[in-house]
């Protein structure tokens, strides 16, 4: 991979020491994010997405967590960096937005205090400047009467407003990379859309790279440039958003898409089965126990190597190995619904977006 990427993650492995042994949450994951680009990490809850993103700036508590691999941000390895140096990057160059705005703010301080905190830690600004900038940002993220609300406490804001505040808090340091971890999950649908739109606008405005974590493919469809599909700590598939929505290669991705009502939603109950025990992952493909196409080869060895199935789209599935018949997987059960809602899909390559 070229080293001029904004963020490059290579072979990221995060484990936790627990009473019941070592738990591997993220197991050798690679991905990268470029400036101005939105990369989505998709997967079920518990698939290691959040841990992966939080490992980037080492927000994960270590111990019990242990992070290995390489995370290069603008060419510098974050994982090898001393904590103090990393602190200058956190909140300043790389900002985070978390899933639950309710809990992510300290209830004891005013939102203004919390927004300016990052600024005052990283930059030598006076109280007035900080306040002015924060009020500007609050205004920008859509909080009415921002200068008055600067001194309000989090509990005086609604959920959507809190997330806006969180965004303001993230942006206050003019970050180059924004890591948004399910920022809309806890919000209701209309607010979700507003927040997504806001993020979209802001990305352009601030020219940031955005790493977006979600389990909601609907959201992905709206904002993603590229997608990384994770399952049980491993990457199953990656590629451009169009490629993956048009022709998902991995059975897991297919099943995820099937859950979307826009795609016909046949498996309403979700994917049958549960995630494997992270203490003791199965041999072979992590998804094999739940995969309807699994065969002997799927259940042996390591997770299959990634295989390029189309330009930029790579999949980790034995069925795409040379000599295997990918059509077993790429069967016609999958019938993505087109933008107009018509179900034609021979070969299933219609566009969901654009």
């Amino acid at each position, binding site marked *: 991979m070229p080293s001029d990427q904004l963020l490059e993650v290579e072979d990221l492995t995060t484990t936790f020491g627990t009473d019941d042994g070592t738990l591997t949450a993220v197991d050798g994951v690679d991905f990268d994010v470029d400036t101005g680009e939105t990369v989505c990490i998709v997967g079920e809850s518990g698939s290691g997405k959040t841990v992966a993103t939080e490992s980037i700036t080492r927000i994960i508590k270590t111990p019990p967590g242990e992070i290995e691999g390489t995370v290069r941000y603008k060419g510098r390895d974050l994982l090898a960096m001393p904590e103090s140096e990393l*602190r200058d990057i*956190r*909140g300043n160059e790389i900002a985070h937005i978390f899933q639950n705005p309710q809990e992510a703010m*300290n209830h004891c301080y005013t939102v203004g205090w*919390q927004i300016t*905190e990052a600024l005052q*830690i990283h930059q030598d600004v006076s109280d007035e400047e900080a306040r002015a900038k924060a009020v500007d940002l609050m205004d920008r993220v859509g909080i009415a009467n921002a200068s008055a609300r600067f001194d309000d406490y989090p509990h005086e804001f609604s959920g959507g407003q809190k997330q806006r505040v969180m965004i303001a808090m993230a942006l206050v340091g003019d970050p180059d990379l924004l890591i948004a971890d399910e920022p809309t999950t806890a919000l209701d649908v209309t607010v979700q859309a507003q927040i997504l739109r806001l993020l979209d606008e802001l990305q352009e405005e601030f020219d940031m790279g955005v790493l977006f974590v979600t389990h909601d493919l609907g959201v992905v469809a709206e904002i993603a440039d590229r997608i990384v599909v994770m399952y049980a700590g491993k990457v199953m598939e990656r590629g451009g958003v169009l490629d993956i929505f048009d022709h998902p290669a991995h059975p897991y991705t297919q099943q995820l898409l099937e859950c979307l009502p826009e795609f016909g939603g046949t498996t309403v109950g979700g994917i049958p089965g549960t995630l494997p025990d992270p203490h003791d992952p199965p041999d072979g493909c992590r998804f094999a126990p739940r995969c309807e196409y699994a065969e002997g080869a799927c259940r042996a060895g390591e997770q299959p190597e990634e295989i390029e199935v189309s330009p930029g789209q790579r999949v980790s599935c034995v069925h795409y190995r040379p000599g295997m018949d990918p059509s077993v997987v790429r069967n016609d059960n999958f019938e993505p619904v087109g933008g107009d809602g018509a179900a034609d899909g021979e070969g299933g390559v219609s566009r969901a977006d654009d």
Partner: protein
Amino acid sequence: MGFGRYVTARVLWAGVVSLVITTITFLLLSAAPNPDVQQATTQAALQGGDPAAAAERARELRGLDEPLYVRYFDFIQGVYTLDWGWSSSRSQPVLEAVVGALYYTAQYSIPWTILTVILGPLVGVYSAANMYSWRDHAATGFAFFGYAIPNFFFGIILLLIFGVWLEVIPVVYNTDVAVFSVENVVQLAIPVFVLVTGSIGALMRVSRNESAEFQNSDFMKTAKAKGVSPLRAYAYHVMRPTLVPVSTTLVGQLLALFLGSSLLVEVVFGIPGLGRLTFEALLSQDTNLVLGTTLFFTFVAVVGNLIEDLVFTVLDPRISYDDR
């Protein structure tokens, strides 16, 4: 309701509570026979006088012949005008006795309170930050030890060891030494230590458990993601919310100890403070002094609870004044 109105309401309510408790005390005591009258009667009988008349005179002298409600109003008026009467067991005005005793009580209570307030949450948060390390276990062990060992028992054991066997602290509390002198520090060290161990345990536990919750909270993650240093994170993001539940425990703990165990500690160490004053007033049936000290402790309890409420409200912005 604004903060001002809330405070006013709380203060008024505190006044009501103190009045109720004062009234109960008054009723309890007025139901008991008055030792002064009994004494006068006996005296008169021995002198060959008329005991009934003597009793009548004694009652008159003390205003006991008046109807209960008149006495009650006089009493309440006395309470609030600080006219608390004459202590017959000490031959001095009650207020003077209380203030005098307070002087000694304050000498150990102030360092004790300060140490508890500072050390309790600090050690608790530290313990939580190093959860399950040997430091945490040591702190937890200490907390449980201090919490469980009866203060008076601990006191006499320490007095035995350091006073009698090792002779490093004086066995007899010396009231003559200056407040800020090495001697005073030496003689107060053990009582303060005993009280601190007693009060700090609960605080440490609460601080530890509460801050454990907060240090794993999402907002701590937010803070970390903002690039906040661990020290600052603990100081601002963990300590502050921890102080909310801790403040409740703190006032409760200090009050409970102040109203209960400090009496024992004063008895054990011979400190002529409020606890011993009360106890001796009870022993010698010095009605006025009993009332006076009870009033004082009631006042402390009520004010303590008031402070607890107010501090709680101030510390936790989520509490709205209307709810309480």
